[in-house]
């Protein structure tokens, strides 16, 4: 293994990590701004022009707050929980292909941290780990609201994980690979062999199931029962203060960013954009444009997350469980069956 490989990857990891943090910080501002405009207000506008320094002010405040570890809690787990939540949220982006290869001199640089052939399984594993942070937080706080919130969160996350896994199976039958890079490359351009090349147009129902499940996995409205403030104070993070509270809020926004990136890569062509092969531009420019397009798609999905939050009211717990177990699971199994028959018949003809 060469030293340049290590340097290249460490630089890439650091850049992606900083971008992730930046996007997570500015998502909080975007959320408040969008909430403001949807409700006929202007949102935060005091800290700098249009409130652009609001995330810095919030972050600074969280940094300098007193940290409280309740006397009846389990201190080690109480501190470990937000660390774990932030850690699992920020390693998910390692397998996402951010763009096509860039060639500088005679060196080809992959815009992907780890190009592994089981990318989807890795994402799936990291998503499942996310629930531990919440569960440990709720249990270690030794607070009734926290415990209720975390038990709800665990139950909800594992219920929607089944439907999420099933919706991905139908996608895998189309793509025939688990590597996110190959999936992105298969969706090259916008139009191939007389049909749209983006997977959304082969798997619209699969995408819909995946979208609903990622809302539930991120604990976002309408599935934010783990922190439903009018019954559970703040759910699993009731007892947290200062930067530990910040870590939970941060990991929620990072999760949103990562799942938007996964959705864009799996279903909306990733870094591919229409007419990319007809513009006659050099490969490097196409790669840079591809990265910008991927981020445009990600920002759209983050906006969509927020738009839904201020549009749809929260589900009741039995409705949530019914949707997950009795609607999404049969629907995704039906989707697998239809996809299987469709592809097999097409191969036979």
């Amino acid at each position, binding site marked *: 293994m060469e030293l340049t490989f290590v340097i290249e990857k460490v630089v890439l990891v650091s850049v992606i990590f900083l971008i992730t943090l930046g996007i997570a910080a500015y998502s909080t501002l975007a959320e408040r701004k969008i909430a403001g405009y949807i409700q006929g207000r202007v949102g935060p506008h005091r800290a700098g022009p249009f409130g652009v320094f609001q995330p810095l002010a919030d972050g600074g405040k969280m940094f300098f707050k007193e*940290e409280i570890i309740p006397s009846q809690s389990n201190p080690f787990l109480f501190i470990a929980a937000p660390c774990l939540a932030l850690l699992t949220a920020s390693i998910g982006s390692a397998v996402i292909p951010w763009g096509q290869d860039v060639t500088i001199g005679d060196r080809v640089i992959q815009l992907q941290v780890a190009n592994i052939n089981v990318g989807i399984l890795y994402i799936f594993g990291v998503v499942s780990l996310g629930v531990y942070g919440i569960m440990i937080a709720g249990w270690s706080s030794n607070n009734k609201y926290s415990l209720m919130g975390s038990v709800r969160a665990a139950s909800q996350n594992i219920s929607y994980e089944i439907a999420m896994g099933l919706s991905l199976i139908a996608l895998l039958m189309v793509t025939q690979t688990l590597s996110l890079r190959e999936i992105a490359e298969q969706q090259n351009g916008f139009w191939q062999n007389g049909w749209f090349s983006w997977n959304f147009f082969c798997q619209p129902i699969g995408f819909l199931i995946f979208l609903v499940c990622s809302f539930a996995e991120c604990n976002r409205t309408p599935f934010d029962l783990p922190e439903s403030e009018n019954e559970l104070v703040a759910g699993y993070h009731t007892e947290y203060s200062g930067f530990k509270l910040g*870590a939970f809020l941060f990991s929620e926004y990072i999760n949103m960013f990562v799942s938007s990136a996964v959705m864009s890569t799996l279903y909306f062509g990733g870094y591919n954009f229409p007419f990319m092969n007809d513009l006659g531009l050099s490969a490097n420019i196409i790669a840079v444009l591809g990265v910008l397009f991927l981020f445009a798609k990600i920002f759209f999905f983050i906006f969509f997350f927020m738009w839904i939050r201020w549009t749809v009211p929260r589900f009741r717990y039995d409705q949530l469980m019914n949707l997950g177990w009795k609607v999404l699971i049969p629907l995704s199994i039906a989707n697998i069956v239809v996809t299987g028959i469709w592809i097999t018949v097409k191969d036979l003809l």
Partner: protein
Amino acid sequence: MEVQSLPVDYLPILFQMLVALGFVVLTMTITHLIGPKRKTADKLSPFEAGIEVVGNARTPVSIKYFLVAILFVLFDIEVIFMYPWAVNFREFGVEGLIEMFIFMATLLLGYIYVIKKKAIEWGD
């Protein structure tokens, strides 16, 4: 088409974990050191809607949550079984498809049993 991943391909994931871990440990330590520390017994008691704390929060939880967890383990393993099939299913042709449908039918039977047993009823 088939790409083999070498152990070295997984190494960057470790870098990302280390960067994330470094950030988490650093910020947690700094915020622990610079925050004010004026602790009182009231401040450190668990929040309970403004009243005195009643009992311990580590009480038994509804059995339904455990039931959901057990069902999750069952169904998730079956979902994972389908992944290798889904990736290779074109090579298996019609025969593989029918075999998988039989597997899914048994899965569905179990699912229907769970629904009929009202294992995931949260109405009451």
